[in-house]
């Protein structure tokens, strides 16, 4: 991959696609607390890592259209919101996922007449996760089907986290699942490793993060099941690593 600009990106807030309203990502960070445990018999600082954390801070232009930023952000829910910043609209593009508490919805009217709002999301129980897109940004399944698979080059052994942003459903109740195979389904049947909760038309926009433990095969794909028409959604995932603070379960 070559160097990339920050153009043509996508941003989701708990199922709301507000890519057309967000103008700037101010901060996507994974700060770590550091514990100073220097002993008196050493001559250099000794440190241990404390709890991990996560933050996504962004600015959005004011928009009161249905499904736009004001609807997504002005409610300031006390429950978690799931944020997903896709750094591109292709399968394999990087994405930052965060299960967050929304801290604010702060408006600013500039002297130039602009009207913008700042929102800060702080992690709740899970650090910021750098993922890869399994969907090409927001995609549409017109009925139950499978998207093209993604070849990660090798299997992994430390579980996986999956993010679903369900933006819109025309009718019915789709279930989005993630499946694995060691040979792209050539002779090794696709096996379901994550099933997101079925979502009925009217319950969207919504989002979910799910995890699975253990080995994950080389090929992954998105499949939808159920009876429905035109489900618009985005999926990202992160393969766990042996150096993670906490293994996926």
């Amino acid at each position, binding site marked *: 991959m070559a160097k990339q600009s920050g153009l043509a990106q996508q941003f989701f807030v708990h199922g709301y696609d507000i890519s057309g309203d967000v103008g700037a990502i101010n901060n996507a960070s994974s700060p770590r607390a550091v514990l100073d445990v220097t002993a008196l018999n050493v001559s250099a600082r000794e440190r241990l890592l404390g709890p991990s954390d996560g933050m996504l801070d962004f600015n959005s232009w004011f928009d009161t259209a249905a499904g736009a930023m004001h609807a997504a952000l002005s409610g300031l829910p006390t429950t978690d919101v799931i944020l997903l910043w896709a750094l591109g609209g292709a399968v394999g593009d990087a994405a930052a996922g965060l299960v967050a508490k929304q801290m604010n919805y702060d408006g600013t009217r500039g002297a130039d007449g602009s009207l913008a709002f700042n929102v800060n999301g702080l992690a709740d129980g899970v650090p910021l996760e750098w993922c890869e897109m399994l969907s090409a940004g927001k995609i549409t399944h017109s009925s139950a089907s*499978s998207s093209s698979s993604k070849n990660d080059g090798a299997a992994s052994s430390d579980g996986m986290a999956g993010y679903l942003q369900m933006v819109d459903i025309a009718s019915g109740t789709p*279930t989005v*699942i993630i*499946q694995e195979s*060691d*040979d792209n*389904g050539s*002779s*090794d*049947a*696709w*096996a*379901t*490793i*994550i*099933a997101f909760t*079925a979502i009925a038309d009217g319950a969207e926009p919504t989002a979910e993060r799910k995890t*699975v433990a*253990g*080995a994950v*095969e080389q090929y992954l794909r998105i*499949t939808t*099941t*159920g009876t429905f028409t035109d489900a618009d959604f985005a999926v990202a995932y992160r393969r766990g690593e042996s150096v993670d603070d906490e293994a996926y379960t």
Partner: protein
Amino acid sequence: MTTRRTKPKTYSVANPHGIPKDIPILQFGDHEWFEGDDYIPPADAKAESIAKKVAKGFLIDADAEKADG
């Protein structure tokens, strides 16, 4: 000369990740298998792939279970 046909090995589909009952655990082409279904691997399936599916809890070796009583 006669060729003796080997009976294909049968597995039972299990659900190691707690997938809801109406979601297929395995898919191959247009075929879907749900928890509790019998599964006969495709003729060209690699033994290694089947062994991994058994180890990961997607398949239970039904023949071995029977032999164990």
